[in-house]
């Protein structure tokens, strides 16, 4: 791949063209996978003898949670590239990821609560995973709010990027703190909330959903970051030809 490819797509017009062409493929493929996965998970996969039909929620909970975390990693990575290479394109990508990531985190938390309530009688508990996910939401909201509060574009980009990078370092520390706290309490809730081992016929819709969500995510980011790039470059020549 090499740096040359990065430089080539790093320029706004190339990025815009690449992303505009990429989007439909990701969108339709992603939607297809999500449809197949949902149908498979909701209707086809057999009922769990322990949990009945409630486990089907994980087909929506797990992809959202997984995506919320990888989106944040992507946002942090884009922020680093933005600061190091002073790339407007990278900052646009980071800015586009934030609202989608926040939305995914919220859905992960909500579906988690909807799963927890009937399953274990409690919608929430302060164990490491749930706490970290909640903190992740705060991190996203901090980024979005900071970016929106600073009027000047470049300053907003770089300040928010600093916060994103700080968040990446911070999240494992938080996770570890809560794990440590809980092991001291010997909370039985940890084992209670462990995902059951999932096997065979119940597994394939989950994988399909995760991959489908990923492609959908790429499609949304394509559209949002292309809009952002256009907005930033609105005075330049290549934009006039669109």
């Amino acid at each position, binding site marked *: 791949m090499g740096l040359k490819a990065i430089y080539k797509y790093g320029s706004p017009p190339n990025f815009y063209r690449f992303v505009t062409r990429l989007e439909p493929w990701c*969108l339709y493929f992603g939607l297809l996978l*999500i449809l197949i996965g*949902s149908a498979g998970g*909701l*209707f086809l996969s057999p009922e769990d003898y322990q949990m*009945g*039909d*409630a486990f*089907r*929620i994980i087909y*929506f*909970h797990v992809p*959202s949670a997984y995506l919320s975390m990888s989106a944040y990693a992507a946002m942090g990575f884009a922020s680093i590239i933005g600061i190091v290479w002073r790339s407007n394109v990278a900052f646009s990508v980071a800015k*586009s990821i934030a*609202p*989608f990531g926040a*939305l*995914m985190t*919220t*859905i992960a938390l*909500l*579906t988690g609560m*909807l*799963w927890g*309530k*009937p399953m274990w009688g409690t919608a929430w508990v302060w164990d490491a995973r749930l706490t970290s996910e909640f903190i992740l939401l705060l991190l996203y909201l901090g980024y979005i709010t900071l970016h929106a509060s600073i009027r000047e574009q470049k300053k907003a980009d770089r300040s928010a990027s600093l916060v994103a990078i700080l968040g990446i370092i911070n999240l494992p520390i938080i996770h570890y703190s809560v794990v440590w706290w809980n092991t001291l309490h010997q909370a039985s809730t940890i084992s209670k909330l462990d995902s059951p081992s999932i096997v065979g016929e119940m597994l394939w819709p989950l994988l399909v959903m995760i991959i489908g*969500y990923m492609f*959908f995510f790429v*499609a*949304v*980011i394509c*559209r*949002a970051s*292309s*809009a*952002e790039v*256009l*907005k930033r470059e*609105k005075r330049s020549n290549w*934009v*006039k030809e*669109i």
Partner: protein
Amino acid sequence: MSIFDMGEYNFYVWTSVFISFLALFLAYYDALRKHKDVVEMIKNRNQSE
């Protein structure tokens, strides 16, 4: 029994499905609208020049 019936967990499962799909739809729709707005704005600028 209809395959749409999730037993006692009916409410929870279908609510999760609903909000998940809603979120996905909103995310894409938001991105789409942002894009449309920017393109509109640029077209107006081009016309007024």
